């Protein structure tokens, strides 16, 4: 640095120095080379140093040691003839550093040559601090708005010009940040608009509304809007409205869901007629809803444990307490207990209540129970129905036993009746017949022919009565005993029976066809008897036909498999069909076809015993078909229906 003028030498000719000295800020001058040749009073006051110490490089040496690097740049600036500025920390008179803004400008003569540098230095520490503080606050605000996703906006009235920040723009799904002539009624849900418009401000003059705003995709989103008006226009309306926006859709949806759930629970509880209660175990208080109160026969919404237990019918109390203890404290689960007890109501009626308790333990993992929530239900009706069913079952069981015993007795009676018939009816018959024979044998020669004729009538009558007794015995024997369930081949039974009939009457010309492998499940002895009766009939009633034909086959009728025995014999008139299966009923005279009328009755008894059905169809001189069903599998027959059998 040049040192052409003495320091602090205030030249009287240079009046500028005097006025600089009076400036309220630090000011100084420097030679074109940058050498400080004058400092004003403020510089001395700021630094607390005498003027002479500040000349030359004195001012620069007050800079903070960390800012010394700046001096290089400043020196470089002095080589150019342009104003410049810089900020640096300067040591104050108290040793503290303050941020100072220094501005330096060149002074040129009329020829444009550099004469001097003039510099001012301003203590900007307080200003900087205020700015920093403001910036910090702004940052905090931004952080708060950002983290809460709160947007801000302002609306000018009456022009409705809306200005929004990015967040509000997103909340309201606006295309731009500035909207001229904003029309909120177009975007706010009609149901919410009227409500929002008629808001009353709070004590601070602020409005808070929640309304749905339509987005461009047509979907409404819930917004919480806080706002207030400023100024007052000619129409009494504010001239400016400022506010915030916040998207509260998730909260609103959660609220709506909670409300919906609550509604559903209320409906469910009401439909199931469930009462609810909760219990704070620490306080020992039970809170009962209206239905639980009704179930417990009390009108108190809050009861102590003891009061609650007192509602339980006294004979059920001990058991109820024991059950709750056992289920909640003695079992491993400790979360749920179900109890049933009676409650005596005001009118003296005992009603059954079922209750389920859910226990929750504290979050600290200890095994205390801190809270109980439960439901109650009146189960009187189902209890009564249950008791009724039990009574009915017992009654039914007793009746079944009684009926079975009666039936067994009746069957035994029938058996012994048949036995008695076989013996007691035969003896007098034998006597009638025998003594007629004795009379003829011993005294026949003394009797006239007419007497012989009468005696023969007695003998014929006896013989017929004997046949009837035989028939009755056959009928009663046909289904006596236990019913066996074996596969029975009806085809081979038919073949055997027809061959035997042909052996007995070799002169008869009968053609027969038998479908092979007709198998039923049943008692082979009985089915054999039934088949022989049917085939015997077919054989007998085709006696008058030259082209006698007998067919044995199976067929489906109404989806049900039936066995058929068909002949082309004398047939019968369907008008008398109901007599077919009645014992001793006949559709032909003895001189047409002899017989007792016991065969088809036997067949029917056997088929019925197997749970099957039998029917006969026919027409006079056009033959007859007897169809019958039998079990086709080894399963127990129910309702007489049989499983289908593939043929």
């Amino acid at each position, binding site marked *: 640095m040049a040192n052409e003028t003495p320091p602090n030498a205030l030249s009287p000719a240079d009046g500028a120095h005097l006025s600089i000295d009076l400036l309220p800020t630090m000011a100084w001058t420097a030679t074109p080379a940058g050498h400080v040749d004058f400092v004003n009073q403020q510089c001395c006051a700021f630094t607390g140093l005498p003027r002479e110490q500040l000349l030359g490089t004195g001012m620069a040496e007050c800079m903070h040691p960390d800012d010394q690097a700046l001096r290089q740049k400043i020196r470089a600036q002095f080589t150019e003839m342009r104003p410049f500025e810089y900020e640096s920390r300067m040591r104050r008179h108290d040793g503290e550093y303050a941020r100072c803004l220094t501005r330096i400008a060149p002074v040129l003569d009329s020829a444009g040559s550099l004469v001097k540098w003039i510099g001012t230095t301003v203590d900007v520490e307080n200003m900087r601090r205020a700015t920093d503080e403001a910036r910090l606050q702004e940052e905090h605000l931004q952080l708060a708005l950002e983290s809460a996703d709160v947007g801000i906006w302002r609306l000018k009235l009456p022009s409705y010009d809306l200005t929004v920040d990015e967040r509000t723009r997103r909340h309201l799904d606006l295309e731009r940040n500035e909207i001229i002539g904003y029309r909120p009624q177009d975007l706010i849900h009609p149901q919410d608009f009227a409500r929002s418009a008629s808001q009353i401000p709070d004590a601070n003059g602020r409005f808070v509304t929640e309304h749905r705003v339509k987005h461009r995709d047509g979907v409404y989103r819930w917004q919480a809007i806080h706002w207030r008006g400023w100024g007052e226009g000619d129409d009494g309306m504010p001239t400016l409205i400022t506010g915030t926006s916040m998207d509260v859709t998730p909260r609103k949806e959660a609220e709506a869901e909670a409300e919906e759930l609550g509604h559903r629970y209320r409906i469910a509880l009401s439909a199931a007629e469930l009462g609810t209660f909760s219990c704070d175990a620490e306080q020992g208080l039970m809170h009962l809803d209206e239905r639980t109160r009704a179930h417990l026969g009390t009108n108190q919404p809050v009861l102590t444990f003891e009061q609650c237990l007192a509602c339980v019918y006294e004979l059920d109390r001990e058991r109820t307490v024991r059950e709750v203890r056992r289920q909640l404290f003695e079992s491993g689960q400790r979360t749920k207990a179900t109890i049933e007890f009676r409650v005596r109501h005001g009118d003296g009626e005992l009603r059954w209540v079922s209750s389920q308790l859910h226990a929750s333990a504290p979050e600290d993992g200890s095994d205390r129970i801190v809270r109980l929530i439960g439901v109650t239900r009146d189960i009187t009706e189902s209890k009564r129905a249950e008791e009724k069913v039990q009574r009915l079952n017992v009654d039914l069981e007793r009746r079944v036993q009684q009926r079975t015993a009666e039936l067994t007795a009746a069957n035994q009676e029938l058996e012994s009746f048949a*036995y008695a018939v*076989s*013996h007691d009816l*035969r*003896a*007098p*018959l*034998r*006597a009638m*017949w*025998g*003594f007629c*024979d*004795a009379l003829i044998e011993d005294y026949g020669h003394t009797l006239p022919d007419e007497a012989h004729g009468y005696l023969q009538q007695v003998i014929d009558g*006896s*013989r017929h009565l*004997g046949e009837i007794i035989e028939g009755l015995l056959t009928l009663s024997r046909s289904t006596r005993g236990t019913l066996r369930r074996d596969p029975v081949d009806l085809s081979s039974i038919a073949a055997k029976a027809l061959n035997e009939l042909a052996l007995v009457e070799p002169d008869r010309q009968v053609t027969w066809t038998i479908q092979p492998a007709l198998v039923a499940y049943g008692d082979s002895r009985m089915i054999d008897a039934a088949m022989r009766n049917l085939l015997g009939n077919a054989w007998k009633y085709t006696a008058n036909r030259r082209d006698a034909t007998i067919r044995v086959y199976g067929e489906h009728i109404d989806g049900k498999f039936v066995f058929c025995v068909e002949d082309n014999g004398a047939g019968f008139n369907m008008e008398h069909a109901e007599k077919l299966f009645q014992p001793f009923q006949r559709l032909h005279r003895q001189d047409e076809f002899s017989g007792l009328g016991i065969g088809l009755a036997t067949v029917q008894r056997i088929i019925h015993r197997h749970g099957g059905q039998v029917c006969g169809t026919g027409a006079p001189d056009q033959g007859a078909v007897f169809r019958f069903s039998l079990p086709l599998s080894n399963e127990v027959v129910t309702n007489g229906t049989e499983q289908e059998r593939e043929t």
Partner: protein
Amino acid sequence: MTKRTVLLVEDNPQDELLILRALRKANVPAAIDVVRDGQQAVDYLFRTGEYSQRTEQLPSLVLLDINLPKLSGFDVLKRMRAEPNTQLLPVVMFTSSDEDDDRLRAYSSGANSFVSKPLEFAEFIASAGVLGTYWLSTNTPP
């Protein structure tokens, strides 16, 4: 030759007459003693009750009905087979029954034969004749 005796146990007087006549017609070579119920039959065979004074020997054949007053034919048969004296005495169940059950029970109780009384008198005579001839003449007692 010792006179043979047949014991007829029959409660029906008409059957009794018919059987006696049939045995007579068939020339069965024996005297016929008749008792009319099971108790009498037992007394007769074991010389008890009203027959305690009976001194004659045991019959050679017993024609025993099943349905009898007091003791049934099966009861009588059981008693006979339990006593050494009567254990081997031929017994023919001559009865109205032709039930399989009765037949089976008769044979398993120790009857020597089971014959159903026929309804027709001619058959009756034939049966009685066969019985008398077979059991009194043909059959060799053990």
